[in-house]
């Protein structure tokens, strides 16, 4: 569990970066060219991002689950802030 928590948090934040990158509304608002993710892809990524949390909850490690959940909340917000600072095309 020592390495699983940071690994799962890193994995979920990486998935959030992908979700953010292909987010249709964000891309439209930022006038970014290229295709946004379709609905299926977004759902697939969302499920993938939640998987580590499900595993942590399944093991009954409440502390690790809360750290993962809080870390995802802060990480997701920071990803959104970072994406919002990218110059519009």
């Amino acid at each position: 569990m020592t390495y699983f928590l940071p690994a799962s948090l890193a994995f979920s934040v990486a998935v959030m970066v992908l979700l953010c990158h292909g987010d249709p509304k964000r891309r439209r608002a930022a006038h970014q060219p290229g295709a946004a993710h379709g609905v299926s892809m977004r759902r697939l990524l969302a499920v993938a991002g939640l998987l580590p949390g499900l595993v942590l909850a399944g093991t009954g490690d409440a502390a690790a689950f809360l750290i993962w959940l809080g870390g995802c909340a802060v990480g997701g917000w920071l990803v959104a802030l970072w994406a919002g600072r990218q110059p519009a095309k």
Partner: protein
Amino acid sequence: MIHLPKEETKLMVAVHGWSGILLGLLLYAVVLTGMAAVFAREIGIWSAGYIENGSVFERPIDHVVRDLAARTPTRDHEGIDLFEVGDNNLGLFFHHHETEPSGELVNRGVYYQVDRDGRVVSEQRGTGEDVFGPRNDDALSSFLVDTHVRLHIPNPWGLLLTGILGLAMLVAAISGLLIHRHLFKDIFTLRRKASPVLVDRDRHSVAGTWSLPFAFILAFTGSFFSFFGTVGVPIVAMAAFGGDQQALNEAVFGDPARPDPRARAIGNLDRITADAFRRTGEAPTFLSIENFGRADSAVTSFHNPGTGDIEPMTLVYHGATATFDRVKPSIGTRPSTGGMLAAIMGPLHFGNFAGLISKAVWFGLGFAMCYVTLTGLRLWLTRRRENARSLAWLDRTVSVVGFGLPLALLVAAAAFLAAMPLGSAVFWTPAAFLGACATAILAGFLSVTNATLERVLQIAIGLLLIALPLIRLATGGPGWPQAIEAGQPVIMAVDLAMLIAGGGVLWRMLAPHRSGLAEHPMLQPAE
């Protein structure tokens, strides 16, 4: 997400906006100091330069308790609280329970502080409220915690106010959830070149959406703590115990053993702390002895949650024989869902269930909530742009509080570092805070524009963050090698965090390529 009819949505928007605008600035003060108070223990170690590592309960305490009991009136043997104070010193509060004429239950007795060599360095008499005030070496962390818990307003009014602020945060979170139609669709959308209303709306709703689950948790648990003693206990005592709060405490939290007032010396306390260490893997955080010197004496050992858990552990020992009795639930005598929920309120609110990692995450969530509160106030003002002149004072107030408050907290920290070696930190910490607040308010009156005011305050914040580690060293605080050698890397970690944060703020404010971003999006002329 949730689609309400148009009229109900308008009502919810009004509830959301007014609950925020009426109490938003006070809520911001509570959330900001709460964010810092997550690291209150680490700030205490950093600011006072504590270099003793480990727990006071890893040292022998048995002889200290016996020696002090011999010189303390027997009436005050009814309860003894033992805990760590300062740089690995032991605090002991010998007390008895008393009901004030107002009906309030208090503990009155003698409070000793004993250093690591077993010498009594302080002895005070009075109620718990009288003797547990801030000390010279913890004035800064005490000031932070007291601001967060009750905004320095006397009890019960301060607690009631922070409880109401928690409820306002809960109302804002629920109404925010109901009025946001595209919660997930908008979760990454931050428009920079849209109208000021949309820019502020995006900032507010994105941060609010990400931190929403924790806004519920922190607001609920905060209100629980504020209302527990001020409203909950008196009402339940009145309804079920004829107003007798002591009877309620004994029934809900106490030991159900039959009273046995026969005199009997207490068993070896060091054996109890060693056994508690063995069972939980760590030293107690707090030790409580009931009926010291009687046959029915009991020792309760409180511990942080175990690995992977968020529920703190409590062990009970037979005092007379120093033998293990049972694992004690938080409420009642048998484990229950209610008892478990009550027990996890603290860890969920303080984020201290897994050491520095969980604290760092809770700090980040607190920062997000400060951001949500401030951007919410900004959004409310931007939407009322046509009334710009009449609301300009509120816009200026948001700037003064938003950036003046963190600046004042940093000034208080600098004053603490300078005054602690002189023994006058209890006075100078709040005095410097008030002085800095007054200066920020004066700057608010004198500044021509909000943008200038905010820029000046943020530059001052950045400079102070960088200066604080230097002030700490200049006033005799331990250097990094000494702290690491003593097993206290927290001191270096706090220094580094301040240097990085200060550098980041200054870079954001002073870097030439960012000057275009510093423009204030607020209260601009109509497009």
